[in-house]
């Protein structure tokens, strides 16, 4: 079967590229976070390793590799080692269905930029993976045999369950408008109107809800209660050290990248060029057009990453009861209403 | 590519899982593990329904699985709430220690 062999080769190359890309993005995030936080606090930030401190994240990782790996005496050894692996692998698994550019035609073979972006349950897969992502943190909290870790793990699972609902409901609006669960279709639907039929214009309320829940699902400030350092020492990763801690760290930044990418794909037009491709003289399926699409996409993702970091260093953390009130009493009713209004709109206007 | 597995294999797997679940329900004392064993049995039935649905080319099996999942979700919410209430009043979730009708 030569066809299946080609498919496997194509998928492996894409998978390697995606995994490598996520690691690089995590490094970029760490650098941006340290620089922007320094700027926000009137400091200089990393400036010793490499030009402008750009190699600082790599130095951090080497430091983590060389650290001693400590497992607490009464910890559950198996789950203590499993938890970080689970966290990181699920953060990467989401990328199986995420496209990051249009397609390239090589010969008579159409290659989509993404491992399996046109699978017709892509959106459900993403929701499933984000909801499974909580296991890493919860298990880390439980297996460390430490009260702070346990509290962090409990908070994390409660928070994820609460915000997942609003996240799913806000995406239903998009599914209603697009009529498909495949991420490629969702982006292609936004390419109409000369590339300006972005879902943010059709679904402003859904966008705000998705943005808030994305912060909550990635445990980023102001929703970083699972690792609230003034209350819980280090939260779920109190008892972790060395590369196991590094894996949680990587998973957090990978999740941040994933959330930004998802917001761009779902609401901000994906790789839609600001002007039609014909005016730039680019053909469908050419490498140049795919590169231009990727560039637009990447710039949008970078701006969202900046936004994520900006919010973290500007807004104080929620109290736990405020978090639950926001999730259940405000976001959930609004997202239900949004689904209802979108359904009426699709029924009568489309 | 995938036709080579006969329906009977799926049914036998599902029967084995169902029996494992039922043994769990009968032998364990911890209410949460009993609850999980019931989920195992439900899933075994789901596997049977989906395999029949795919082999017969009839969608109603999968629709049924959809309903089973909704009922399982409702059951999880209620069951876990009952377990919590039980723990609060008896400080145990072992079913053989809960032997009074009224306390």
């Amino acid at each position, binding site marked *: 079967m030569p066809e299946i062999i080609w498919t496997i080769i194509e998928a492996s190359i894409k998978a390697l590229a995606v995994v490598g890309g996520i690691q690089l993005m995590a490094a970029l995030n760490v650098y941006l976070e340290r620089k922007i936080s320094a700027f926000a606090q009137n400091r200089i930030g990393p400036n010793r390793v490499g030009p402008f401190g750009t190699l600082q994240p790599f130095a951090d990782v080497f430091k983590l590799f060389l650290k001693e790996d400590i497992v607490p005496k009464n910890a559950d050894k198996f789950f203590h080692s499993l938890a970080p692996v689970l966290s990181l692998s699920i953060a990467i698994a989401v990328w199986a269905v995420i496209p990051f550019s249009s397609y390239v035609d090589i010969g008579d073979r159409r290659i989509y930029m993404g491992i399996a972006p046109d699978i017709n349950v892509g959106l459900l897969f993403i929701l499933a993976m984000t909801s499974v992502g909580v296991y890493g943190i919860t298990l880390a909290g439980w297996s460390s045999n430490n009260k702070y870790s346990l509290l962090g793990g409990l908070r994390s699972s409660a928070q994820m369950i609460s915000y997942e609902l609003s996240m799913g409901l806000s995406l239903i609006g998009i599914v209603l408008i697009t009529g498909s669960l495949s991420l490629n279709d969702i982006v292609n639907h936004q390419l109409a109107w000369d590339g300006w039929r972005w879902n943010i214009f059709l679904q402003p309320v859904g966008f705000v809800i998705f943005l808030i829940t994305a912060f909550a699902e990635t445990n980023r400030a102001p929703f970083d209660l699972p690792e609230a350092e003034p209350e819980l020492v280090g939260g779920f990763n109190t008892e972790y050290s060395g590369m196991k801690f590094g894996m949680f760290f990587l998973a957090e930044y990978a999740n941040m990248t994933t959330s930004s990418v998802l917001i761009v794909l779902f609401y901000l037009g994906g790789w839609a060029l600001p002007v039609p491709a014909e005016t730039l003289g680019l053909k469908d399926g050419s490498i140049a057009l795919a590169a231009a699409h990727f560039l637009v996409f990447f710039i949008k993702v970078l701006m969202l990453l900046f936004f994520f970091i900006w919010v973290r260093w500007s807004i104080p953390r929620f109290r736990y009861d405020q978090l639950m009130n926001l999730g259940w009493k405000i976001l959930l009713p609004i997202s239900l209403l949004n689904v209802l209004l979108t359904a009426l709109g699709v029924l009568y206007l489309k | 590519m995938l036709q080579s597995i006969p329906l009977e294999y799926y049914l036998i797997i599902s029967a084995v899982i169902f029996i494992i679940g039922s043994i769990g329900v009968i032998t*364990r004392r911890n209410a949460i593990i009993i609850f999980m064993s019931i989920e195992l049995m439900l899933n075994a039935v789901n596997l049977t329904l989906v395999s029949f649905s795919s082999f017969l080319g009839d969608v109603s099996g999968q629709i049924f699985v959809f309903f089973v999942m909704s009922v*399982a979700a409702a059951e999880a919410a209620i069951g876990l709430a009952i377990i919590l209430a039980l723990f609060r009043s008896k400080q145990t979730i072992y079913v053989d220690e809960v032997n009074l009708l009224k306390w």
Partner: protein
Amino acid sequence: MTLSVVLFAVLSILAIASALVTITSKHPIRSAMGLVFHFFMLAGLYLTLSAQFIAALQVLVYAGAIMVLVIFVIMLLNLGDEEKLKYKVNPRQVIGIFLGAALLVMLGTIYVTNVSVAGFNKEIAANIGTAQFLGNELYTKYIFPVEAIGILLTAAIVGAIVLAKRKLN
């Protein structure tokens, strides 16, 4: 052909093994993680049956929602290992295993002797497994059960809140 056989064998053996882990481990968290793994393997088996929507729902509902809730409760109650009973041989276990074996033999004979269906048609199966087809069926032919399930879920939410809430006084 061999690829699909290997896939099926691995998935089903892992599914049965993790089901056994679920009912045999002492600590409920280990049971729960065994069950989560079992659900993933079942999702894989659904994929070999071309039921992709059900496979995604399996992970989303069972692994993502129900089991997170179960683990949350286990951690909240801070349960430890299940202690042994006082007597050595638990009659309930003996009876349970015996009954289970009898049931297995019964189901096995019924399935192996009495089932005869036409072969697996991948095109038809892949068509009915999509979200679009299932959604159409659900909201036209099965609209009444969907509404009933909605009422059931609402009742379950209310019931869970009433049961879990502390007495106000």
